[in-house]
C-alpha cells in the first residue's frame, strides 16, 4: 500500500504519523514535543477531544503528526474510538505510533494488540519511563519487540527523553526499511475457521485495501459501527465516482 513516488517528503507530501493510545499516556505531550505546538495536556483522561494535526521536520523530510483522542480499546463502539479506528484503518497513516503508559503496561497492551491486528506499520512507544523508574518497574523492550514483531522505543516525553530515537525509528519505518511482523493473536480453532471462511469474501470485496483478517474478525464480532463506516464509505465513493467518473480504488477515501 501507499507507494510513494518521490523519495524526499516535502511539505506538500509529508509522511503521516498517527499517535494512538490509552487516555493520559502522554500522547499530547509527545505531540507537543515533536511539533512545538500547544495541545492541552493534563493529568486526567479525556482532555483531548479534538483531532489535532501538527508537523515536524526530521532529516530533511516533513512529517504530519495526528494526535488522536485517547481510547482504551478500538472495539467498544464509542465515538472517539471510531475516530481513532477510522483513522488507522481508512486513512492508513505511514506509521501508527501506539503510546503506552509504562506504569500500566498490561492495560495498555490491550489496545496495542488491537492495533497490531489491524496495521503493519506500528511502533510502540513506552512513555512515562521516568514514572516507571520511580515506581521500580523494569521493562525489557528488546524482548517485547521480539515478541510483538514491531519496534519498541522507551520515552519520557515531558523531559524529551528518547525523542531522537523515536524519530529515527519512525523515519526508518516510514521509508519502509523496517521489516515488521506484527503479533496476530491466535483464537480457538473454531473461531479461526470462521475467520478464514470470511477472509476470502472480504478480500473479494475490498481487495487488499483493508486488512482482511481484521475485517473478518470485526464482522464476526458484529461490530455495527464498523459496518456503518463501510457502508458510508461505499456511498461516499459512489457519489465521487458519479461526480468525477473515475473508479480507481475504493479505499482509501480522504475523510
Amino acid at each position, binding site marked *: 500500500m501507499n507507494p510513494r513516488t518521490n523519495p524526499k517528503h516535502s511539505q506538500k507530501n509529508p509522511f503521516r504519523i498517527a499517535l494512538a493510545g490509552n487516555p493520559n499516556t502522554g500522547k499530547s505531550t509527545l505531540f507537543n514535543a515533536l511539533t512545538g505546538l500547544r495541545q492541552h495536556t493534563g493529568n486526567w483522561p479525556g482532555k483531548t477531544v479534538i483531532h489535532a494535526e501538527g508537523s515536524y521536520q526530521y532529516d530533511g523530510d516533513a512529517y504530519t503528526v495526528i494526535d488522536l483522542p485517547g481510547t482504551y480499546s478500538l472495539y*467498544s463502539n464509542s465515538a472517539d474510538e471510531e475516530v481513532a479506528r477510522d483513522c488507522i484503518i481508512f486513512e492508513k497513516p505511514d506509521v501508527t505510533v501506539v503510546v503506552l503508559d509504562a506504569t500500566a*503496561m*498490561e*492495560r495498555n497492551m490491550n489496545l496495542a494488540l488491537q492495533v497490531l491486528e489491524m496495521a503493519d506499520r506500528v511502533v510502540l512507544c513506552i512513555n512515562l519511563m521516568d514514572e516507571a523508574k520511580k515506581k521500580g518497574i523494569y521493562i525489557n523492550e528488546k524482548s517485547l519487540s521480539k515478541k510483538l514483531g514491531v519496534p519498541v522505543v522507551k520515552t519520557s516525553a515531558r523531559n524529551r527523553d528518547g525523542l531522537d530515537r523515536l524519530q529515527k525509528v519512525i523515519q526508518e519505518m516510514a521509508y519502509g526499511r523496517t521489516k515488521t511482523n506484527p503479533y496476530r493473536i491466535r483464537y480457538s480453532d473454531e473461531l479461526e475457521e470462521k475467520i478464514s471462511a470470511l477472509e476470502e469474501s472480504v478480500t473479494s470485496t475490498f481487495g487488499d485495501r483493508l486488512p482482511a483478517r481484521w475485517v473478518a474478525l470485526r464482522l464476526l464480532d458484529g461490530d455495527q459501527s464498523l459496518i456503518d463506516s463501510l457502508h458510508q464509505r461505499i456511498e461516499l465513493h459512489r457519489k465521487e465516482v458519479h461526480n468525477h467518473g473515475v473508479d480507481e480504488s475504493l479505499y482509501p477515501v480522504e475523510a
Partner: protein
Amino acid sequence: MSQSSIIPLTEGLPGQRIRIHHMTLEGTMRRRLLDLGFVPGSEVKVLQRSPLGDPVAFRVIHTTIALRKEESSQIFGEIIGGEYHESTH
C-alpha cells in the same frame, strides 16, 4: 473469609481482594469494563468509597477505576483475601 461465595462488587469492603467470576452487564458497557480489565478470572481490589458513599474506586491491573453502584452491582466475584480497613484514616 466466607467460602467461595459469589458476591457483587458492591458488597466488597475497602481492602478486600475479589476474583471476578462473571458480569451481567451487556453491550458497550460490558465491553468497556472488559477493556479496563474487569475480566473473569482477574483480581480486583476494593480501594475506597467516595466521600458520599458512591462511586467506589477499584484497583485492577495496576490502574484505579471508579464505578457507580449501578455497574459494580452487576459484576460478581469471590473474596480471595485482603484486610478490611476503614477508608477514613
